[in-house]
């Protein structure tokens, strides 16, 4: 029967494709996340435990934003400026990556990987204060 032979051929091609893709799969591309400049304290790497930061950093930043913008409460606890200052590090030439180019930017490394768009940097800078304090004079701390 015609349809049988077609199906048989299809099955052969499929199983071949599976074998080829299995062999050529190789290893997973590993994600490189740039290290921060320093630990937050002796016990803790960041302002909250790492598990919390990985899951909740977006919420923390949004919460902080609304506290600051709508209620005028301005602390340094979950400040975006402080995140950027510690997490965005210069390359060997001393240049700082921005969120728009180069995979070495701390935020960009994961957000591109997980296809999550962020709008923080439509207003805020994605580079630490020290990167432009040299030619623009000391940046006012908030």
């Amino acid at each position, binding site marked *: 029967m015609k*349809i049988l032979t077609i*199906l048989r051929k299809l099955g052969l091609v499929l199983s071949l494709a599976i074998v080829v893709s299995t062999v050529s799969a190789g*290893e*997973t591309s590993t*994600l490189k996340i740039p290290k921060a400049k320093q630990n937050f304290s002796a016990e803790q790497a960041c302002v909250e435990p790492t598990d919390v930061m*990985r*899951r909740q950093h977006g919420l923390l930043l949004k919460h902080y934003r609304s506290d600051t913008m709508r209620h005028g409460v301005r602390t340094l606890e979950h400040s975006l400026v402080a995140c950027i200052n510690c997490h965005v590090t210069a390359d060997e030439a001393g240049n700082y990556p921005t969120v728009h180019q180069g995979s070495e930017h701390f935020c960009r490394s994961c957000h591109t990987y997980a296809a999550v*768009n962020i709008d923080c940097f439509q207003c805020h800078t994605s580079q630490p204060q020290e990167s432009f304090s040299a030619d623009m004079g000391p940046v006012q701390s908030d």
Partner: protein
Amino acid sequence: MEFWTAFYAISFYVATFILMFGLGYKIFQYAVTPAPLKIPTTPAPLTTGGVVVRLLLEVVIFRSLFRSNKWIWLFAIIFHFALWIVLVRHLRYFMDPVWTLVVLAQPFGKYASFAMLLGLFGLLARRMFVVRINYISVPSDYLMLFLLLVIGISGTLISFVTRTDIVQFKAFMLSVLCFDWSNLQTMPTDTMLLIHLTAVISLMIVFPFSKLLHVPGIFFAPTRNQVDNPREKRHVAPWAVKEFETTPASTTSE
């Protein structure tokens, strides 16, 4: 290696195997099952091209359901389209780099989950409160809705409330997909994520044994996929000819 990582990696392989080969076998079975009768539901297309259009309309916009029942059609189309968008959004966990289309689908997929739940609750209400539907409903009808609801609710909760480490999860998924066992990444073990994955894996496993086979099945429905040309072209099943037809001299052409 952590228990959950190994457990879900193996379950994923088993479920994928059952889904692929189960579905492949059912499609094969549908393809070789004879359709001895010419029974397109009329009015039916007179050409093969017409049949393609008819099937496409049936698959994409559920035309016959639309004609028979508007409110069921509404819930069905909401659920199925939302499911498509959600599925496209989930592709981000299975590829690196992520396709632009999948990146663009992200915000839509996030909110499509609510539409999906709305559709599912509508279909569940139909099954429970429409008396004649309730009368013919069997446990497996509820099981499918239940599994899809668990998937939808847990997924929406992960996305909007409890959160999980999606970067770590993607690393796990990619290492599983690439058969990179020596370098298998650990999986985040948030409760909601475990529930979500368990329901997904269960659905993959029951798929080839359940009513979810309407996905490939619709293409093989004789009432939908046949051309209305019984007079122009005689409809025969080869096995029927072999079994029942002798070739008397009078019917063979000179």
